[in-house]
C-alpha cells in the first residue's frame, strides 16, 4: 500500500487543509492528484503519513474541507 493522499477540490482547500493539519501536529505535503484516481477532475491532494490518514481526514472534514476521496502519492504505483 502506498503513501496516502487525501483528495480535495482545489489548491486553496489543499493549502487550508495543510494549515489545519499542521495546527494538529500532522505533517503533510501537497501535490496534484493522479488522473487515474480522479479522472473526472483536476485536483490537489494532501499527502500524509500512513498512520495519520484516518485522523487527518476526520480533522479536515470537521473543519469544513470537502474531501473527494483518497488515493496514493504520485509515483507510488
Amino acid at each position, binding site marked *: 500500500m502506498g503513501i496516502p493522499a487525501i483528495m480535495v*477540490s*482545489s*489548491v486553496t482547500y489543499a493549502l487550508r487543509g495543510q494549515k489545519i493539519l499542521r495546527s494538529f501536529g500532522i505533517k503533510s505535503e501537497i501535490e*496534484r492528484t493522479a488522473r487515474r484516481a480522479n479522472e473526472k477532475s483536476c485536483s490537489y491532494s494532501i499527502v500524509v503519513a500512513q498512520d495519520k490518514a484516518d485522523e487527518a481526514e476526520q480533522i479536515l472534514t470537521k473543519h*469544513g474541507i470537502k474531501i473527494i476521496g483518497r488515493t496514493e502519492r*504520485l509515483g507510488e504505483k
Partner: protein
Amino acid sequence: MIYLDNSATTYPKPQSVLNSCASAMRNSANPGRSGHNMSLATAEKIYSARRTAADFFGAENEENVIFTPSCTISLNMAIKGLLKNGDHVVVSSMEHNAVMRPLEQLKSRGISCTKADVFAGDDDKTTDSFRHAINSKTKLIVCTHASNVWGVRLPIERLCALAHAYGLLFIVDAAQSAGVVPIDMHDGYDVLCTAGHKGLYGPMGTGLMIVSGNNTMQTIIEGGTGSNSYSSEQPDELPDRFESGTPNFSGIMGLKSGIEFVSSHKIEKISAHEFKLMRYLYSRLEKMPKIKLYTPMPDDRYFVPVLSFNAEGYDSEEAAAILNRNNIAVRAGLHCAPCAHEAMGTLDCGAVRISPCAFTKQNDIDRLIYVLSKSL
C-alpha cells in the same frame, strides 16, 4: 510633484509593495494549475495573501476572499451575480458608475432601481431614506461606503441591518473607505467590493470581492480554474468559482504588502493624519471668498478624508489644469460619479477633488493653498 489624487490611486506606493511586486515577477509560476514546486510555492503565497485580506476584513475563511482586477469588476460580478429578472435594487444618491452602469445595463432584464437620498451627518435620516425606497420587488441594497467625490460616509452597518431585516441582500462598495475606515465582514455584509490600489496601497489592476459564507451568487465570468477541469460547468467551490484565468500574482503580492502596510501603520493613525490635513485645508478654503465648499467641516464619523470644491469663475478642469502647471496633481470633473454631483448640484460644473494619503505632508497642503490663493 505634489500628489493629491489618492482617491484615484495612492501614490507613492510603499517600498514594500514595490519590492513584493518585483520579487513576484522574478519568482513565480502559474499557481493552482501544476504540481511542481514553483507552482505550489506561488499558490502558497497567494493563499497567504488571502489570509492577510481575510484577517484585515474579518472574512470567514481564506476562500471567501476573491482576487479581482478592480472594484468595478467586483461590483459587476456581485450585482449581476445576485440579481434576477424583474428584481428591484436600492442604491444611494452618491453612487459611482461602477454601480450605476451595471444597473443601467440590467434594465433590459426588467431590473429597476431606486436612489435613496443621503443626508451627510444624519444617519437616521439616511437610513429612513433607504427604508422608504424598499418595495415588494426589492432584492438588494448596494451602496458606496463613502462618496468618492464628497467623502460623505454612509452608515453601512445600519443599512446592512436594514437590508437583512427586510430579507434583502447587501453589497458594499468600499473603494474609497478600505484602508481609512475599519470594515468587518462580521457586521453581516453579503458582499464587500473594494479596490486594491487606493487606501490599501496595492498596485493598480487589483481588487477584492469578499463574500459571506452562505453566498449563492451566479458567475458572469467562467473559464479555467485548475480544478474540476473535466466538467464544462464552473466549480461551486470558492474562490475558484469566481477566479477563472491566471491570477495577477505580482499584483496580489503587492496588495498583500499594501494591506500589511496599512495594518502596521494602523488605520486609525492613517485616518487621523489625513483628516487633520483635510480639516486644515477646509479651515483655509472656507476663508477664501472665491472658493465654494459643498460639505461641512469633515467629521470622521460622517466622512472620509476627501474634499471637493470649486473656484468662482473657473471650470473645475481649468482649476485642476492651473494646479497641474504648478506641479499639484488633483482630479476634476465628474469623477465617474454623476449621481453624486447631481445630488450636490454640480453636474454641470464638476468639482476639484483633493484626496490625501499616508504620505501627504502639511507642506503639500500649504503649497496647494498658496497656489490657489495666488492663481484663482
